[in-house]
């Protein structure tokens, strides 16, 4: 284990883990991203106030699929569950970080999950959000994405994957705006780290714009690098959904505020279709990803 002390200019991958979130997917995604960026993984386990408040209510109980009856919740029961969750998170982070040979640190904090994670982010950090793609709290992910601090570099949405882990390409989605350059570069580095193919989804309304995006991508990654390009029209969300499902990507890198993630409903559909970690790069003050 290493310390979580941040060096100036050093990039960190912060994994915000909640009591009931999936651990494996966000931690694995964080380790891969850290390996690609030679960054440190910072595990942050939140002992949520909301959980303890819930458990303190007189009628608190939990329902789960497959359980025959509701389970009564008590503060003691909740404390035990939170402690177990912390141990699991730490063990998983340790294992994945060692596999990827990256630095890591882990800490637990009590408080409101959203506020605590926000406060922990430093300039240039990536936040990995263990968000659900489906269920009652799926819609919350977009709120979290929109509200990350401006100094953060981006956010990774890493929910539980359906079926076996895909071994497909790393996809960079470029709608032609200024953030596209860093999107392609980050995707290329992840592809190199994971030995996956690199694929570009170019969103362009005409051929000229498409050519410009492709040309810029080639300039960014170098002329010798292999790049498979697929073109989509703006707003063609269904086509892109089908494309993502077809190629079963291992990672998706896109611009947080560009096409198609500017629309919440479309973004949620794309998260589900990708079935892989989605890295959303913030367009403001990001500069370029240092190689």
């Amino acid at each position, binding site marked *: 284990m290493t310390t979580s002390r941040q060096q100036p200019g050093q990039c960190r991958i912060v994994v915000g883990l909640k*009591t*009931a*979130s999936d651990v494996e997917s966000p931690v694995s995604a964080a380790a891969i991203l850290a390996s690609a960026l030679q960054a440190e993984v910072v595990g942050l386990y939140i002992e949520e*106030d*909301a*959980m303890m*408040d*819930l458990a*303190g*209510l*007189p*009628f*608190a*109980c*939990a*329902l*789960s*699929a*497959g*359980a025959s009856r*509701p*389970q009564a*919740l008590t503060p003691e*029961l*909740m404390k035990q*569950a*939170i402690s*177990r*969750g912390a141990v699991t998170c730490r063990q998983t982070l340790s294992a994945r970080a060692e596999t990827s040979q990256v630095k890591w640190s882990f800490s637990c904090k009590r408080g*409101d999950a959203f506020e605590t994670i926000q406060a922990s982010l430093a300039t240039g950090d990536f936040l990995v959000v263990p968000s*659900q793609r*489906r*269920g*009652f*709290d*799926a*819609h919350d992910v977009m709120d979290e994405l929109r509200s990350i601090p401006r100094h953060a570099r981006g956010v990774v949405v890493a929910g539980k994957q359906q079926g*076996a882990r*895909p*071994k*497909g390409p790393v996809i960079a989605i470029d709608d032609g705006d200024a953030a596209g350059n860093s999107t392609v570069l980050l995707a290329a580095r992840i592809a190199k780290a994971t030995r996956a193919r690199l694929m570009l989804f170019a969103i362009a309304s005409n051929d000229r714009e498409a050519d410009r995006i492709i040309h810029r991508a080639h300039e960014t990654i170098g002329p010798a690098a292999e790049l498979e390009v697929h073109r989509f029209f703006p707003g063609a969300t269904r086509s892109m959904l*089908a494309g993502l*499902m*077809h190629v*079963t990507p291992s990672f998706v890198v896109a611009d947080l505020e560009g096409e198609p993630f500017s629309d919440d409903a479309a973004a949620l559909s794309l998260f*589900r279709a990708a079935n892989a970690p989605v890295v959303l790069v913030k367009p403001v003050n990001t500069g370029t990803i240092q190689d």
Partner: protein
Amino acid sequence: MTKRQRKRSAKPLPASRLRSICTAKSLGFRTTREVEPIQTLIGQDRALGALWFGSSIDQPGYNMFALGPQGSGRHTAIASYLSEKAAEAEAPEDWVYIHNFSSGHRPQAMKLPAGMAVPFRDAMAELVDDLRNAIPTQFQSDEYREKRRAIDADFEETQERAFEDLRKKAEAQNVGILRTPMGFALAPMQNGHVIKPEVFNALPEVERKDMESKISALQSDLAAILERFPILEKRRREQIYNLNAELTGMIVDASIKSVADQFAGVDAIQKRLTDVRADLVQNVELFLQPTEGDGNRPDTQNLAARTHEPQFNRYLINVMIANDGDGDSKGAPLVVEDHPTLANVVGRIEHMSQFGALVTDFTMIRPGSLHRANGGYLIIDARKLLTEMFAWEALKRALRSKKITIVSAAEHLSITSTISLEPEPIPLKVKVVLIGERMLYYLLSTLDPDFGDLFKVEVDFSEELIRSEENTALYARLIATIAQNEGLRPLNAAAVARLVDEAARLSEDAERLSLRVGRLADVMREANFWTGTANRRQITAADVDRAVEEQVQRAARIRDRSQEVIERGIVLIDTQDAAVGQINGLSVISLGGFSFGRPSRITVRVRMGSGKVIDIERETKLGGPLHSKGVLILSSFLAANYALDVPMSLWASIVFEQSYGGVDGDSASSAELYALLSALADVPLKQSLAVTGSVNQNGQVQAIGGVNQKIEGFFDICLSRGLTGDQGVLIPSANVAHLMLRPDVVKAAAKGRFHIYPVDTIAEGIELLTGMPAGQRGKDGRFPANSINALVEDQLRRFANVRKQFGENGDKTENFAGKT
């Protein structure tokens, strides 16, 4: 004595009776090149008839046991005969093992028309190859993905709608739905946060009740949604299964159709293909599982290797029996099992080490000789079979049940608990021919109750052939055939004649020819060698003589040592003068493949006693039962022929002097009787003569074995000391027909320097040995004075009187006893 015993003394046999000679001229050819080879066995009519019968009768249990001596050509003859018979028969069905889809550890046996197993195996391997490529490709098609996405989307939409409706409903009532480690929970919310317990408890009771009531109602809704999830998930899986089945069916049908067309009309294959199709539809995931280095792209390389991946084995074919049914028929199979272990006979199940465990499947079932011979013939050496653990029992079980069941030795001994297979037994129809020695046959007949039921046909190979003119000609053709088959030089007529004589000598009978063709072929090969060293083109009689002499020379070290110790006087054998109670007996010693005759001194001592003849060999446990029997017979002869009116009051001891290795057989019983009569009559026996022959209670001398070796053994001793013209051997008259003496013995006899006396009775023999008449009982019941018999009877009466006086006077009579 009987009338037969009153014959005149025997005369020596003329030299012409001592060896039956085949002349080159009588053969009618110059060399074997002129002789037509013979294709069938000679002199084995009985065996060939049994072989025909056994191989023709189509009934259970009529398996064959070919018995006969080593080197009689049984293996070659049977294999040759049965290969012709098998070639005429129709090729039997093929058998394969297939995976049992309903019970994996019990592979199914499947019968196919002859010649179909291998094409079917190849077709199924090709089918798996095709599907290994086609199924993943089709499952990656846009059409399939779209259908699959529609199912998933429908499921997700239903799920999401339910979640969203409940979430909105809860939100409208200030209730939040939270995900906890234990599941979903409902909580009252305030400003987007779960209300603190102390705040909630401070609320008016009405509000709290109201909130609890709302949450309770929402909880019921949530429970209803969660209860529906497994049902929805099950429906989704069914829809996906049906979609997969539909697509798989389309792909598989196309591939299977070509196989089905290839084997149209073969019901077993059509049924198997139906089963395979059903299993493929049910287990299509086998073809969709990514393999090492597979990625998401279908690898079109190395498909053949992929076919052998274990998950695809279930559709492959393991050929156990494949026969040629393509018109260029080989007929029924003929298998010679040279190493009949349990596994080699009934087959075995191999295992493969995988991550430290032994695993197997039906493709690792290996056929045994019973599988390969099914529908045909199986030849096994009986001795080898019986010495292999469990093999004999397994063969019997298979023949009895008419099924081949594969069981390993480990399972027999219960020493392994590895999960293995229970292959379905394959029906068995085979003719088994065991080849073994006579002793094995008789032992099995006596000791194994199953043997008689399972091996009903005795194929008895004769050891010899009657030496007629016609058979000698056939034998010459046999010699010519061996020379041709073995690639030997041609033999001239004299060499063939010499071999015919040697064959008679091998059979130990001048009127028979040995059918041990193995020995005959050995002599021919060696003669051919000596011909080569002499740089001749044809094998001559001299080469045959050389081969025989060299064979003897190589094996005769013990014989030479035995003669040497006699010549040096270490073993005492007299060949001249005369002695009372002492005679030269003859015995045969067999060592390895060589036997030779050797004289032994037999001595007898007599005195008054209680009528007992002591066999010292038996008393010292050096005599076998046959030897003891001979001694008891001569005791009986004495008791029945002399001094019938007084008690037998003889004590006699008989011994083979300087014999340390044990004696058996009754061929010395006549010699022992002569020595006993000599001792009783106090008349010396000529030591220039040796004696062989057994005797019966009536004093008749009976035939014995090894007569030639016995005569030659004594001849060699006499020759080394110098032939005197008085020396010779007394043999039973019944053995005259067996005389095939060495040419040097015959030559000495022709010159009157060595004699062979045939005798029928003890009377004839004792006259030759003593030079005195045996004597016949006159009308007065007495033997003539000074005859051997009179002297014997007088002595026995004396012993009886002494014994009587001994009984009356106690120890005063002791001095009269002990006359020898």
